[in-house]
């Protein structure tokens, strides 16, 4: 079986813009699922609202495309009532960190056995490019026309602090690492949070001097560094530029978890 067998062929073409990073993340997810040998009938994809959340509809398994921000409590109900199901949540930065922020921290605290994949494109793509809780300070969006004046959330650090058993951050450039991280998350009992920085050429890049898709992918390549390396730099007194994004595995631990297959 190939990961491509997991796609609903009759749903194509998808709604994503050309150059969008979400497709890469979906491919990486399905490659990880395929490698793990999960069965279609035992797997459920749950999502909220936004570009990222349309992903669940392109996959052949049972899927629940829910309300804005609420994917995690829906997934909690699915997983706790049938722990034999593998439950994966697709979400985005607006869905997860703004309207769904409270559900996010509580799902991490409960450490429910879910795999949560956040496509963080730092913008509300579907509604036309409004600022989100992860829009970097100074970045332009339709609701931050003079540059965002708010500090951004670090979602992975938040998940670590809230108690998730597995947390990693990669980007849509880091395909192999991302696939491995998703697989590792899926194998870890408890809540696994995999954050993926994702390019949105239409609504983020275009407004922020990253006009070409490749500009944004290059940016993710050049402005990321392993978390451990950044820590070492800080320890040795070196200055880390503020626009460098930490990537890699943030935590892998064994806190008590809920909804684990019996």
């Amino acid at each position, binding site marked *: 079986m190939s990961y491509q067998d997991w796609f*609903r062929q*009759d*749903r194509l073409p998808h709604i994503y813009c050309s150059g969008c990073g979400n497709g890469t993340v979906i491919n990486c997810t399905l490659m990880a699922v395929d490698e793990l040998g999960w069965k*279609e*009938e*035992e797997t*459920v994809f*749950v999502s909220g609202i936004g570009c990222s959340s*349309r992903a*669940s*509809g392109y996959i*052949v*398994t*049972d*899927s*629940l*495309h*829910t*309300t804005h921000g*609420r994917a*995690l*409590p*829906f*997934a*909690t*109900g*699915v*997983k*706790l*009532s*049938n722990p*034999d*199901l593998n439950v994966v949540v697709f979400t985005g930065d607006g869905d997860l960190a703004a309207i769904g922020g*409270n*559900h996010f921290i*509580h799902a991490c605290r409960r450490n429910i056995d879910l795999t949560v994949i956040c496509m963080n494109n730092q913008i509300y793509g579907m509604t036309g490019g409004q600022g989100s809780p992860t829009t970097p300070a100074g970045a332009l969006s339709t609701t931050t026309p003079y540059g965002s004046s708010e500090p951004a959330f670090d979602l992975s650090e938040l998940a670590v602090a809230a108690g998730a058993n597995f947390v990693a951050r990669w980007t849509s450039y880091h395909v192999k690492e991302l696939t491995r991280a998703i697989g590792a998350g899926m194998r870890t009992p408890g809540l696994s949070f995999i954050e993926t920085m994702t390019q949105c050429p239409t609504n983020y890049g275009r407004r922020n001097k990253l006009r070409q898709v490749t500009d944004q992918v290059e940016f993710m390549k050049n402005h990321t560094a392993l978390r451990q390396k950044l820590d070492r730099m800080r320890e040795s007194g070196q200055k880390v530029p503020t626009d460098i994004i930490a990537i890699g595995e943030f935590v892998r631990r064994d806190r008590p978890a809920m909804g684990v297959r019996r």
Partner: protein
Amino acid sequence: MQGNIACAEGAIAAGCRFFGGYPITPSTEIAEHMAAKLPRIDGVFIQMEDELASMASIIGASWTGMRSMTATSGPGFSLMMENIGFAVMTETPCVVVNIQRGGPSTGQPTMGAQGDMMQCRFGSHGDYSVIALSPASVQEMYELTVKAFNLADEFRVPVFLMSDEIVGHMRERIDIPDQVPIIPRKPLQKGTLPFHPDADLVPGFPQFGEGYGVHVTGLTHDERGYPCATSPGLHENLVMRLVNKIESARDRIADYSITNPEAETVFVTYGPPARSVEQVVRDLGRDDIGHLRLRVVWPFPESALKLFASAKQFLVPEMNMGQVAREIERHVDQPVIPIPKLGGNLHSPDELKARLEVLH
């Protein structure tokens, strides 16, 4: 037994094995009882972070085939409206208990009211129909909770048990049957499109984990379950079906009792005011006072009103400003006289008798 406990016991008897809730007066005893009981019978109790999440969790659980429930009061009910709409659109069976208290806003947490009757009918956005039951005794808390689960599964719709602080916190005698009737969900026939309705306008249920590979979305969807949000005809047909599967079954869903159908003066009640009227009828010993006592309020059983062929006026005591009286007005030519009561107390029989004096 207390009304709230009877509700929880009725749910367990009906096979409810998932409760997601958030504490709120005066409904909390239901959550507490479920928290104590469910883990002992292989069920799941979870206290969610808010009522948005509670409603979401019971919908998620329902898709795995579980009978699921939440319980709340006005402020929490308002928060649930978003996902109640989702349950309607996705045809997810579930039971929502509202132990009503005085509103708006935080209002009177420890006092009874019936102020959410219109909210349960119209509170989420868009056009839709639901089923709402209204118990007047501890016995009915039990029986109507069981009935709520059966209706939810039969019609694939959220069903509301619209109780209130008075009945929820009242303790009285209850007879618990050895067994309750259970009408299970009709499964989807393999090979049928997941949202293709049968003759009763209700599609079979494609339970998660059974290999159906169903996509469930709150977006307007076709019979495959696929989003199709820009076709006017498809949207119209879907919404009309969601409404008609309930409204066309009004008479079948209806549940009421009738006293003195020849009367000219007819009380219409649901919930605790029913008992005030029954007291009046018993005290006065008169057969010229009619009483239509509704256990199902939505869909509104308008044909029951016609059974009072000689009616000259309908009196509607409600613990709100006349929410259901307004509905009755739509269906009859006779005068409809609301008898509103706010503040948390129930209409006393003397008050109603005085009202009758004035009218005669």
